[in-house]
């Protein structure tokens, strides 16, 4: 209580009731953004899981909802979909968090599906899930613009995924066509089951080829399907694990570096490196090449790959895989080093886009002359912005608005 020093000039009214400019009931901005939409979808995933389990654990499931009559077949089947859709939603939340457009489309499709189970059973336990879905859907729709990143797959990932799909289709259609020559294969679902069990190398053995033709066919499915399956797992999961490992151990080993593709090289460490890394975000693989280990330790903490070495040396740039880089930013503390670095980078990769920062605006044309595609003088930009801002023509913040959405 001693902290409240009496101030007679400020009456009780002001101190208690008029301390801030404007008070709202709910600060909508905090609750209606893309982040809230992702959170709510995540909550829907968790609730869908719990509600599904709760439904399964009931000894006598009740079906009191409005959809109960409209559901064809055995409604008991539905009880499993709750838990199953929770997994799908979980993966989608992962994609939504990375602002992927495709995850947004799929979430819009899956969320109403997740509402089917509660609408069929309609117990008290289903209401929270229904409410969350009702909240999440409009929020996702409102925040459509935030989920605009395309799904970036490497050519290997696309190839392996499409070959899995292809082999799956080939195997299903083929085994169904040859169903007379298989023991235990009669329907379409039998053939889907057979192909997946075969491709995944599980092979229960309840469906077996009986004729030579069928055996040859099965072999083709095994060779191509299992191959595609293995490659797909490698292409999809290994990079993610690699990233984790790199994050855990700091700098990448040269073998890990060889896996890099379309990354951005940041050569040199300067005051502008931190905001630069902020702007590049986590979406792009970034490799920082800098000589000084004290400073690079700071970068290490951000889970960015660091190659310790002199960026003016061709060997260091090779190690950082400049030949596969999508772009190079040159920003050392000294313009002379910048020139040497641009020269070295251009020599190592003729095609790559090189952007350089000139500490002194006088040096812009020199850097351009040695091979930089674009040279930016941070000092000049800062000075101009200061001037514009003080004249009220445009605020510095407005400059960054469009970059936030597009990033």
């Amino acid at each position: 209580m001693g902290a409240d020093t009496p101030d007679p000039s400020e009456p009780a009214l002001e101190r208690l009731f008029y301390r801030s400019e404007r008070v709202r009931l709910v600060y909508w901005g905090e609750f209606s953004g893309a982040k809230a939409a992702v959170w709510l979808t995540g909550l829907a995933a968790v609730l869908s899981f719990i509600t599904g389990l709760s439904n399964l654990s009931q000894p006598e499931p009740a079906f009191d909802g409005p959809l109960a009559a409209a559901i064809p077949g055995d409604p008991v089947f539905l009880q499993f979909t709750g838990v199953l859709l929770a997994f799908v939603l979980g993966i989608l939340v992962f994609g939504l968090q990375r602002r992927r457009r495709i995850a947004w489309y799929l979430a819009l499709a899956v969320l109403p599906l997740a509402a089917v189970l509660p609408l069929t059973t309609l117990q008290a336990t289903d209401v929270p899930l229904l409410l969350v879905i009702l909240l999440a859907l409009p929020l996702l729709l409102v925040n459509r613009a935030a989920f605009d990143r395309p799904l970036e797959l490497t050519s290997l990932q696309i190839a392996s995924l499409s070959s899995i799909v292809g082999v799956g289709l080939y195997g299903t259609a083929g085994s169904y066509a040859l169903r007379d020559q298989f023991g235990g294969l009669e329907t379409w679902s039998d053939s889907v089951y057979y192909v997946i069990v075969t491709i995944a190398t599980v092979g229960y053995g309840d469906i077996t080829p009986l004729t030579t033709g069928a055996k040859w066919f099965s072999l083709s499915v095994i060779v191509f399907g299992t191959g595609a399956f293995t490659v797909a797992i490698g292409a999809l999961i290994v990079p993610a694990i690699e990233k984790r490992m790199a994050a855990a151990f700091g700098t990448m080993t040269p073998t890990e570096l060889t896996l890099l593709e379309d990354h951005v090289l940041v050569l040199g460490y300067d005051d502008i490196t931190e905001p630069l890394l902020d702007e590049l975000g986590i979406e792009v693989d970034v490799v920082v090449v800098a000589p000084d280990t004290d400073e690079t330790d700071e970068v290490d903490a951000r889970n960015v790959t660091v190659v310790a070495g002199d960026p003016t040396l061709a060997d260091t740039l090779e190690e950082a895989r400049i030949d596969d880089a999508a772009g190079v930013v040159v920003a050392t503390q000294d313009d002379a080093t910048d020139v040497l670095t641009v020269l070295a980078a251009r020599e190592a990769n003729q095609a790559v886009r090189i952007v350089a920062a000139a500490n002194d605006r006088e040096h812009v044309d020199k850097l351009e002359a040695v091979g930089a595609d674009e040279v930016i003088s941070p000092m000049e930009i800062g000075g101009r912005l200061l001037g514009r801002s003080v004249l009220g023509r445009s605020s510095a913040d407005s400059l960054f608005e469009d970059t936030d959405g597009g990033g």
Partner: protein
Amino acid sequence: MGLQGVGPIERMLRTLLGPLCLLSGAVVTAGFFFPELVVEPVSGPTWLVLSLVFFGSGLGYLAVLPAESDEDADPFDPESLLLVRRLGLTDTLGKFLSRQDPIAFGIPVVAFVLFFFGQLLVPAETIRAVDAAQRAVTTYGGWLFAAVMAIAVLVSLYLLVGPWGTVKLGGPDAEPAYTYPVYFAMFFTAGIAAGIVFWAPAEALFHYETPPPYFGVEPRSEAAAGAALTYTLFHWGISAWSAYVAVGVPIAYYVYQRGAPLRVSTILAPFLGVANLDSIWCRLVDLLAVFATIGGIATSIALVGDQFLAGIEFQWGVASDTVGSVLFVAGLTFVFVVSAQSGVHRGIRRIAAVTLVLFGLFAVLFVAVAPRTAVLEYSSRAIGSSAVHAIPMSVYLGNGPIASAWVADWTIWNWAWWFSWAPFAGLFLAALSRGRRIRTVVLTGVIAPSLATMAWFLLLGSTSLHLQQTGTVDVLGAIGAAGGSEAVAGFPVLESLPIGQLLVFGFLALIVVFMTSSADTSTLAVAVLATKREFAPTTGAIVFWGIIQGLVAVSVLVTDSAEVLQATAVLTGAPFALLVLVSLVGLVAAFRRHERGRQSIVGAARAKLAGDTEDEGG
């Protein structure tokens, strides 16, 4: 600390309450979703405690979350360390007392202590005396309550459509600091406590069994159902809320237009002058306001504690004793003290928002499963009948000027209760109203909340009437089995509906939040009144008054004197009925003197129709 931003105690509370809420929440969620697996091994009282801990710690955590503007503040304040060393206990006490108003602070504290010693030493006499006084006041003074209430309604309606409604509090350039939703939410949730939850399914049934003599209908007849709903709407509608505006608008007017201090005694300004608001009369009015507020709120807290546990016992057979009630009240006190000290912008605002959201959500879910055609039918009849009978009901007492037993027990008792809440609710309404036109204040203080309460009472009241009449559920039988307690009426009604289990949860949660959102505001109001007028109440003072309210509630429970204190609160309503009259007379006089030449809504509309484009001077 709360008023200054985030203090070390608050930070500690946050680190304590957050995990507590998460843990208990996880257990409660598990119990909710997997009743067979989780509920069985855990006993009933444990569940009750767990759910209350979950809900209470959640509300408390919400209250101590820092406001947006506090985020930038220095997270570590070295001053706070020095402070601990500098302040001895005597220093702190001395400093604390030096800021309290001797009359408004000292007398209530002494009086409440004396009251409970009297209660402990000579219980029978005290009860009899207070009871007799209350009966006499409601019976023979009934005409006063009814008359003042009718005048308050008339003045409110005149302010709404008349020329004075255009007065903008704080001058023409003042901007409201609270957006309309938060303005409405905070006032609405402060002005009504758990009564709205308990009585909504119950009151119409009571009138159905014992119909109001005004209608002269057979008990439990079709006509009695209509009469019951009509009277329920009358008790919780426009009249009731007008009492708050009758105190709030005068205070707001003198505070923002004439520079008076924010106190209940400001209603005397037109008689004494703004400069003389330090006189003994004003001190007495403030003192009375403190009494009425503590009496009204503390009794409500104690009652809610009892009713809540009675409902639990009825519903799940979890019997509880006084210790249970005391623990419940202690928890409730903790939450509303935390909320009150965190300030209007944090705890009070957020809990008001939670209350309103829960209220709306419950209503929507209820509408989804309620017998809608029956509700519509009953409601339309009750609304029509209310419109016809509103004025006769307002002046009906029974035996000429003396109130009949029914009117004294229901209508007058109810009015007295609303009058005893008027000082703090009016003060709070005034405090939030800067930058609003008086018309908006009346709209928010009377029309909007009474529409909300009436819709709510129609919804729940007609559902329970329908269930009772069709014989689906014998709610009256359940009430009778529980000793005539209104607390149990909601449970059989909700249980009979689909998703009833969830509705019961929501019902219990609503009881807690509505009580909290009134008690935190009243604590703040009492702290303002008991502090010397040149100071704002310190966090210490707010905590002190919150604990006093909790203690009074606990002692009511321990000495089993709820009826006595209830009667006392009703008794303080009587002087406030007089004060409301005085304040309305003063307000009308002040408006006639200072606010001439304004245009009423009708006049403005006529001017607009006539194509009159000249400036209207509003």
